[in-house]
């Protein structure tokens, strides 16, 4: 599990802040509705940003805008100062779990190798290096022994690890995860958090979740999204921001250690 090849030691704040993501006044219209409106966001290198917000609040759209999958209707999306299409090789993406076809005949190994694909790779076979990296990625997420299992016969947690491995096999500098803790039992949630906590020493992570309690101690910055983004570059969110985002009264409870963001049940 603990696969570490840290190039720079980044225990605390990195010496030179490098801007990885910058969204300037980004609006996205999607299927005739406004999914994002006037979003401003900067993510620095080695940030671990958690984005929370209600379902349909535009969280997935925000990630897709960062990936260049949906165009910004207004405003500008930049990764390392360039349009997202230019940085395909530097980004790892773990899409929302529920959207994949469980019935598709494919093994975990083939899914992970898929992460090595790129435009120049077309018409070439997978290399020994590709396979070596896939072995490493499977080891990192701790499912080496399941590599030949069809994806449809795995548990939700195992599938999620496969998708994380597929993102890691690209050796990304920026990792984007869409609801990585959905359909996963609490033990696996903790495992995945520990994995992300380990990964954050060597990459920038942006994670999206509709579940406030899922954003736990590991995340060091939290933003709140419901069409508009509420973000102050810290782990604390003022209650009025959460209320504005969720449109209903929510209490933020700081239980000392660990710091948690909880929603009151109606």
């Amino acid at each position, binding site marked *: 599990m603990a696969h570490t090849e840290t190039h720079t030691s980044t225990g605390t704040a990195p010496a030179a802040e490098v801007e990885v993501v910058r969204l300037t006044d980004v609006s996205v219209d999607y299927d005739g509705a406004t999914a994002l409106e006037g979003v401003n966001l900067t993510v620095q290198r080695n940030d671990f940003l958690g984005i929370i917000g209600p379902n349909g609040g535009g969280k997935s759209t925000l990630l897709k805008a960062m990936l260049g999958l949906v165009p910004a209707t207004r405003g500008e999306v930049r990764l390392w100062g360039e349009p997202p299409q230019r940085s*395909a090789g530097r980004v790892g993406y773990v899409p929302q779990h529920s959207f994949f076809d469980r*019935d598709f005949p*494919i093994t975990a190994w083939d899914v992970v*190798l898929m992460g090595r694909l790129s435009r120049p790779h077309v*018409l070439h076979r997978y290399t020994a290096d590709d396979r070596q990296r896939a072995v490493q990625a499977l080891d990192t997420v701790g499912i080496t022994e399941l590599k030949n299992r069809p994806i449809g*016969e795995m548990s939700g947690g195992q599938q999620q690890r496969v998708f994380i491995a597929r993102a890691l096999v690209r050796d990304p500098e920026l990792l984007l995860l869409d609801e990585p803790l959905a359909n996963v039992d609490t033990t696996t949630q903790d495992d995945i958090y520990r994995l992300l906590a380990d990964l954050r020493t060597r990459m920038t992570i942006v994670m999206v979740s509709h579940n406030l309690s899922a954003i736990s101690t590991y995340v060091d910055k939290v933003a709140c999204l419901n069409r508009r983004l509420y973000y102050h570059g810290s782990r604390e969110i003022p209650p009025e921001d959460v209320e504005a985002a969720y449109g209903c009264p929510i209490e933020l409870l700081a239980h000392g250690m660990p710091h948690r963001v909880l929603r009151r049940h109606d």
Partner: protein
Amino acid sequence: MFTVLGYEFMQHALAAAVLAGIACGVVGTYVVVRRMVFVSGGISHATFGGVGLALWLGFNPILGAVAFALAAAMGMGVVTRRTRLSEDASIGVLWVTGMALGVVFAGLAAGYTPDLFSYLFGNILTVLTSELQLMLVLDAVIIATVLAFYKEFQAVSFDEEFSRVAGVPAGALQLVLLALIALTIVTVIRVVGIVLVIALITIPPSIARQYTTTLSGMMRLSVALGVALSVCGIALSYVLDIPSGATIVLLGGLVLALVLLAKRLRPTRSA
């Protein structure tokens, strides 16, 4: 009955069955896992326009079918991507427009057009050598393309969004796949006919899926099943003296039903 194998028409029929079975096994696997069965049905019926045009202008209907199948496939790809028309609706429009064109063209063709029926429901006993050569070329093109883009097709089929993020030209590959479906349909038209094409594209991979867990495994088994079903169907139709295309389809349906029943009675793979 084996003396019949000495006749050229029967040799041609069996060769056509084998070539169709190969194309269907390979491309049908993508069609089934990507749930493109009705896209294939739309393209298939659209080829009737090409058959009618060829009968009217007096060239080989298979060439008309190739042109219309490719045009329909590209049309599908572009229309669903560039307009607000849903895939479902565009399939329906394509389906009936092709059929209507075929009927109009065939009506313009002077006199009696007995061929029409054989293109709709297949008449494998009248396959020409030139048609077999065309089928062989189409099979070669299909297999070469699938070998060249295997891992990209797999990725785009499984997770198109991720493929795009990775930099795979997913849109272009989708059009290539549609073109492969079009070519496959052309190889099958002589065997089972326009109306029954989706049976050979759908049934062998659906049976194969029950026993395989990888795309390549599913393809190999589908090819074997497609060839076996076509050949057995022809033999059966000869013995019983019933139409060959329909016999192949009914045999395939029966085998699929038995396989599903057997799986239900003795489940080997947990869903």
